[in-house]
């Protein structure tokens, strides 16, 4: 039972990270109907930028660990969001009216480009985060010893998801995003600047992905330039699982996938861990392509 709960909480932490990345996929898909293949790499940029800023600025020493990490997170999110906006402007905007395949190939190209740029800058080896950025304590919860970092990851991702949900549901800008997702032409007629909405989506999604990258760095302590691909694929699976284009769906899908993967790795086979997400992906597309919470039938499926 102890192992079960350890795996469950671990799954929730990993799932929270998947959910944060999945939000970026799902928002972009909602507005542009495009799979942003480069999103996983933006997540990696978050992890690497976090590492660089952490080592060079030493914020945690100057401002204390909690405030330092919060400032760091804000900087990482801002920078990765900026990269996202530049990416949209250079790789996706020129292709907005082109056939789907062109945009997909461009997105893949962007992914390959970003990943290899990172490799050329930092080298191909694993990069190690400094230890003890945050206190490495374990919290005793219902008789379980749970690493503090795990709880932080879950809480941070839940707070960010809730903030995004409230933003999209309650504010005027959020309404504009939802309107653009439903019908771009009609949204334009209603006086919504759709280009601005798309820019905003490419700011928020990558910012959340970047935050997820920083969390991974702090949680696992090491990052690699290729990790964005596997995290990206899994987060995309999470987005499909919850229903692509659906923001609460991405949250549910992410947490669920994290738990399925953690429990599957513990009880079925650790060697097949990475295949679990792909099996889930294929099954969900065969059985229920709209995902768990997706009400809109994706027209192309």
């Amino acid at each position: 039972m102890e192992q079960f709960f350890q795996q469950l909480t671990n799954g929730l932490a990993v799932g929270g990270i998947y959910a944060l990345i999945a939000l970026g996929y799902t928002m972009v898909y909602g507005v542009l109907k495009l799979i942003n293949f480069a999103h996983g790499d933006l997540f990696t940029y978050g992890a690497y930028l976090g590492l660089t800023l952490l080592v060079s600025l030493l914020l945690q020493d100057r401002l204390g660990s909690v405030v330092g990490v919060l400032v760091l997170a804000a900087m990482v999110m801002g920078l990765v969001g900026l990269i996202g906006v530049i990416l949209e402007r250079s790789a996706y905007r020129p292709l907005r009216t082109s056939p789907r395949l062109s945009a997909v190939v461009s997105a893949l190209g962007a992914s390959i480009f970003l990943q290899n740029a990172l490799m050329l800058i930092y080298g191909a080896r694993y990069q190690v985060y400094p230890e003890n950025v945050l206190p490495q304590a374990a919290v005793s919860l219902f008789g379980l010893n749970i690493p503090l970092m795990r709880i932080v990851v879950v809480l941070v991702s839940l707070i960010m998801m809730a903030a995004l949900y409230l933003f999209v549901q309650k504010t005027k800008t959020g309404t504009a995003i939802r309107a653009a997702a439903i019908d771009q032409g009609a949204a334009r007629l209603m006086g919504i600047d759709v280009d601005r909405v798309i820019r905003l989506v490419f700011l928020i999604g990558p910012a959340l992905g970047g935050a997820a990258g920083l969390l991974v760095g702090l949680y696992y302590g090491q990052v690699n330039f290729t990790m964005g691909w596997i995290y990206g694929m899994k987060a995309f699976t999470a987005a499909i699982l919850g229903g692509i284009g659906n923001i609460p769906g991405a949250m549910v899908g992410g947490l669920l996938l994290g738990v399925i993967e953690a429990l599957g790795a513990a009880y079925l086979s650790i060697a097949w861990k990475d295949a679990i997400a792909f099996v889930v992906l294929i099954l969900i597309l065969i059985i229920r392509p709209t995902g768990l919470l997706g009400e809109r039938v994706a027209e192309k499926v």
Partner: protein
Amino acid sequence: MAKRRLFWAYVLAAAVLAAAPLLLDAYWVDVLNSVGLYALLALSLNLILGDAGLFNMGHAAFYAVGAYTGAILNTQLGVPILWALPVAGLVAALFAALVARPVIHLRGDYLLIVTVGMGEIVRIALVNNVFGLTGGANGIFGIARPSLFGYRVRRPQEFFYLIWAFVALTVMLFNRLEQSRFGRALNYLREDEVAAEGSGINTVRYKLMAFALGAGWAGMAGSLYAAKMTIISPESFSFWESVVLFLIVILGGSGSIPGVIAGAALVVGLPELFRKFASARMLVFGLVMMIMMIVRPQGLFPLRRPRFREADLDREAVP
């Protein structure tokens, strides 16, 4: 006219290639061997991606199934690798038909994602030594060299002729296929699925056939690869392999056979000229992909569709 020019281009290319091993050293012949293998694989993917318009980004999985079938038949049962070739193709085709059946109705990027997932599952299965046959992460070694009419193919120069003869055969067959009822049906499917179905094309059946045929051909190329390397491991069939194949087809000009071969030469051969910048190879690829899609989305050598002209009408009218 264009057709005749293309024919002479093929003849010229064949002549140049036939002379190449006499002029180049073993290293460059080996590069050309790689180009040939990738051309084979890309031509097989072109059938699925270019002709039928199905976004398959897990082609390395079929390539892997073929390579492993050939290798297992050769090392476990002692079947000569060239005899194993058709079996490997058949197994890969059956495998493709089986796994593609439940997802063939998915369109566009959904199919792309699913095929990526399938490719990964196959790779993980190979690493995990599925059925105890694939040798885990180390793969299979000690695959016997092929022999042809009692002659053992060993040196790169000898492989060169074997591989490029296979490429020539493939070009000939796929050219015929493109102009057949089957090929036209696939093109119709790609352009407008609803209209194709409306004119009596069984879309699911044709899509599956394209998948199986492309996969089978990739399987045979895989067996050839196994024979050339004498050792295969899951690493050789990673996701990037599928991406490179996808890239060759898209860059060369999807649906166009000469385009795809030129694409293989560019993507596989060109980086060899710039070995100094080998680490930046993929960076440039990514950049080229983005720029190409904006500037020239149809690829470098796109398919020129035959156009109906008034002159054709006159020719028909004259008895």
